């Protein structure tokens, strides 16, 4: 990979290999994630989509090869990388015993938002995901889809440069799927970058780059 590509790309991987339970899932993957693009990781169940995303965002270190964030080794610039990354996994980190507002207060503090700024950002985010009026209801009283939306509200806290979304469309109604698609499209149009996995056919105007896994 040329030095120039590394300078413009947000995230690059070189010869990335991931294994899980002694099965090779990703072998010699060279990715160059450019700003403002949408990337969809594709592959059948068990082909390592989630494993790849977890490796990319730094939860898992079971890989060989290199991952660079804006030209720097991701391990070395972890704090910078993680302050600009938003990861949404299978489980959304939402506590059922807390209200949406209390849940997001914790997430906001991890993102460095404080005080009034955090409060207004949380309310705006909850409004955006359609939970206006549910701020102070305990999450266990909300439906599965609404709880999922509490997790999605994190997308609007802080100003991440990269979203890594693992099956973001799970348990979301048709209307919600459309909304989420439009948020992703808007985000990409404003220079944001998205890497996601989904079995759902995206209907987004923005061209989608596909990363295929599980082809031997």
């Amino acid at each position: 990979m040329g030095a120039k590509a590394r300078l413009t790309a947000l995230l690059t991987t070189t010869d990335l290999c991931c294994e899980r339970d002694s099965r090779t899932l990703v072998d010699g993957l060279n990715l160059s994630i450019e700003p403002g693009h949408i990337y969809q990781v594709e592959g059948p169940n068990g082909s390592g989509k989630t494993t790849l995303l977890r490796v990319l965002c730094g939860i898992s270190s079971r890989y060989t090869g290199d991952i660079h964030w804006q030209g720097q080794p991701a391990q070395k610039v972890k704090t910078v990388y993680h302050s600009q990354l938003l990861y949404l996994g299978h489980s959304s980190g939402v506590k059922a015993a807390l209200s949406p507002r209390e849940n997001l207060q914790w997430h906001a503090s991890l993102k460095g938002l404080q005080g009034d700024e955090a409060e207004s950002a949380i309310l705006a985010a909850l409004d955006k995901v359609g939970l206006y009026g549910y701020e102070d209801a305990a999450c266990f009283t909300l439906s599965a889809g609404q709880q999922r939306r509490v997790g999605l509200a994190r997308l609007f806290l802080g100003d991440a440069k990269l979203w890594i979304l693992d099956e973001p469309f799970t348990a979301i109604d048709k209307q919600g799927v459309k909304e989420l698609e439009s948020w992703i499209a808007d985000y990409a149009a404003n220079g944001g970058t998205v890497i996601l996995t989904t079995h759902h056919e995206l209907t987004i105007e923005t061209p989608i780059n596909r990363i295929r896994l599980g082809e031997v």
Partner: protein
Amino acid sequence: METQAPSFMSAFSATLKRDLLLAFRRRSDFMNPLAFFLIVCSLFPLGISPDPKQLAILAPGILWVVALLACLLSSDTLFRSDFDDGSLELMLISPVSMYIQVLAKTVAHWLLTGFPLTLLAPLLGLLLQLPSSGMAALVIAMAMGTATLSFIGAIGAGLTVGIRKGGLLLSLIILPLYIPVLIFGVASVKAAVDGFDYAGQLAVLGAFLALAVTLAPLAIAASVRISADN
């Protein structure tokens, strides 16, 4: 919206606040070890004999052993719910250092187990006929000792959180590490009861605590990282 690097204090207090709030919402969870402490201690006079002389000899040991088991019982839950709902992964990839976050979680754990145990201890000491000369030593030693136990327990909890039935393994890992705290905890109360100076034993407990607060979070953070990575 400008995102500044999260300050240590605000991240620490946010995690602490969240854990205390969660415990407050699920009161039965954190009452468990306290009820255990209360019930087991109150069974001893029935099981051994209500004779004040005999009980007074055994009291420091009983109080410490039961407090230790209560801490062991509660440490399993430290990271469990965060692991199950994905919060642990988010902690790992947040810009806030894991050191601060696990420190906050462990302090919250102590406030919910060790601290109430410390407050209950004089009452149960009275029940077990512990001479009043030993009370001050008991409270101070309990406060420092249970805090150390929380930190040690958190290392084990971090290591076993990824295992479905890690209860037995957790006790095997951390019980040996609890022993020094038990020895010096009991020794300080015994010395106080016998009228000796107990500052030395308390100093050793204080040293354990200082070591635990500064070094244990490193081990806890590493163990949590290992557990999340599979």
